[in-house]
């Protein structure tokens, strides 16, 4: 079912990671990504993998949920894997089929590329799984606050993002419901030619758009009724604050990034 798309879904919990300040988590994820792109060879990837495993086990999110979230990106994974496999030159030739050749270097590249994407997605998923969308945008807004000086509408962007995030599950639920209702009238979304499938989308998309506009309209009215007028002078119900845990996490990830960069330079295994 559509519901099973967990992309960016929040799993409430009380783990150490859940309790971190969203700003800390955002910075840690950026550091993690920097480290990941500097990783070369088994040693550094191994280290990154260790850290990822550690974070996943601390977060208590469960490997299952993480793996389920991977499903939508399988196509991208296979595609990048194949591209790297066939288009990397160098090393000894393993197989040669006409214009397609597979070299040892290609295999290595494809392997690490897939691992890299998987770890990238796992890391970012861990962020969204352990941080509520509201906390996430709050954190982002505060981190980007300096940009207000150069007239970037940080608050509005953050608000738009939190509303969008908030409504993804609602829209998915709505899609599910409308799909069921049309299926009950014999609509067939799975079979038929490409054209027929595209046509079958009309009974789904029209009501979905209508309801999305209706919701947007209602939300705008509701916000205005509560005197929302942008970020100016707005105070927060929940003030974010750093704790010891945040400092430990930050130090840990800075150390990890430095370690990976250094190890990658000198021991490129």
């Amino acid at each position: 079912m559509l519901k099973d798309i967990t992309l960016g879904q929040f799993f409430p919990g009380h783990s150490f990671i859940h309790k971190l300040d969203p700003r800390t988590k955002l910075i840690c994820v950026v550091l993690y990504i920097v480290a990941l792109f500097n990783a070369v060879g088994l040693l550094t990837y191994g280290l990154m993998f260790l850290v990822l495993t550690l974070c996943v086990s601390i977060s208590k999110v469960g490997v299952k949920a993480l793996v389920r979230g991977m499903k939508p990106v399988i196509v991208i994974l296979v595609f990048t894997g194949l591209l790297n496999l066939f288009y990397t030159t160098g090393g000894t030739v393993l197989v040669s089929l006409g214009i397609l050749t597979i070299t040892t270097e290609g295999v290595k590249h494809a392997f690490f590329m897939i691992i890299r994407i998987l770890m990238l997605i796992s890391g970012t998923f861990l962020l969204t799984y352990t941080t509520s969308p509201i906390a996430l945008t709050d954190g982002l807004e505060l981190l980007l606050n300096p940009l207000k000086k150069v007239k970037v509408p940080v608050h509005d962007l953050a608000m738009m993002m939190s509303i969008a995030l908030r409504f993804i599950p609602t829209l998915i639920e709505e899609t599910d419901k409308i799909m069921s209702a049309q299926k009950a009238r014999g609509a067939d979304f799975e079979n038929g030619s490409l054209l027929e499938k595209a046509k079958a989308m009309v009974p789904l998309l029209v009501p979905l758009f209508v309801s999305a506009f209706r919701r947007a309209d209602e939300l705008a009215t509701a916000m205005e009724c509560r005197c929302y007028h942008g970020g100016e002078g707005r105070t927060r119900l929940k003030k974010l604050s750093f704790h010891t845990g945040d400092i430990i996490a930050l130090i840990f990830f800075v150390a990890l990034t430095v370690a990976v960069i250094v190890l990658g330079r000198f021991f490129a295994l």
Partner: protein
Amino acid sequence: MEPILETKGLSCVYSKGTPFEHKALIDVDFKVYPGEYIGIIGHTGSGKSTLIQHLNGLLKPTGGKVLLHGQDIWVNAKETRKARFKVGLVFQYPEYQLFEETVYKDISFGPKNMKLPPDEIDRRVHQSAYFAGLTDDQLQKSPFELSGGQKRRVAIAGVIAMEPEVLILDEPTAGLDPIGRESIMQNIRNYHDAKNATIIIVSHSMEDMARVADRIVVVNDGRLPLEGSPSEVFRHGEALRSMGLSTPQLTQVFELLKARGLDVDDNIYTMEEAKAALLALSERRNG
């Protein structure tokens, strides 16, 4: 008599294997006989909608079976599709599913999917519009121009147009005014009588259920703890209240009257019964 629709040990688990795992149905055995008029009651989140979505194969059971005329509807894709046409389901707030340019086209969506000939589709659209209480000039309007209550009638007509043997409606009168509610209940009654169709209605109105249903089924936390004729079910006032439900208001009045020492029967569920009981009481007093 053979049941037309039957569930055997039906269970349903939502979001299995995540922190949100929820058992919505637990080992449900439910039988529906041809021509019956069944009311399903239960508090919010008890699993009513989940149960009825299993009856026409929209949800696949996590465990157990759904049988239509004794045939498992999940044996192959063809049977499942057949079940969708034989068991018509009108969703909760169905007005949000309309999509066509005109009401006529929207109602004909179901029959078209059944691949019926054009004149048969035309007949069914007109007939179902009649059953749902729509006028002929409304048929050429855009569904988006109609009021909420009229849209709901269009959606109901869209399902009736498939002429299902079993018609299931999930809270068809939610959010309507008393006259609209009464008229939709009457429309459903007419369809039941005219086509000898089996009807299953989910409702939060004990009054309506007491009046129209042959049999009432109570859903509570994924199980069916109580079922029977309205008088059998509403006799268990205490049990119903403990499940977040109640007896019809009339019954409550008579329960209170009896508690005050008046010599009345407290198994009163409809206006007619109430009238008779009160008249009898005054006879006894005066006579």
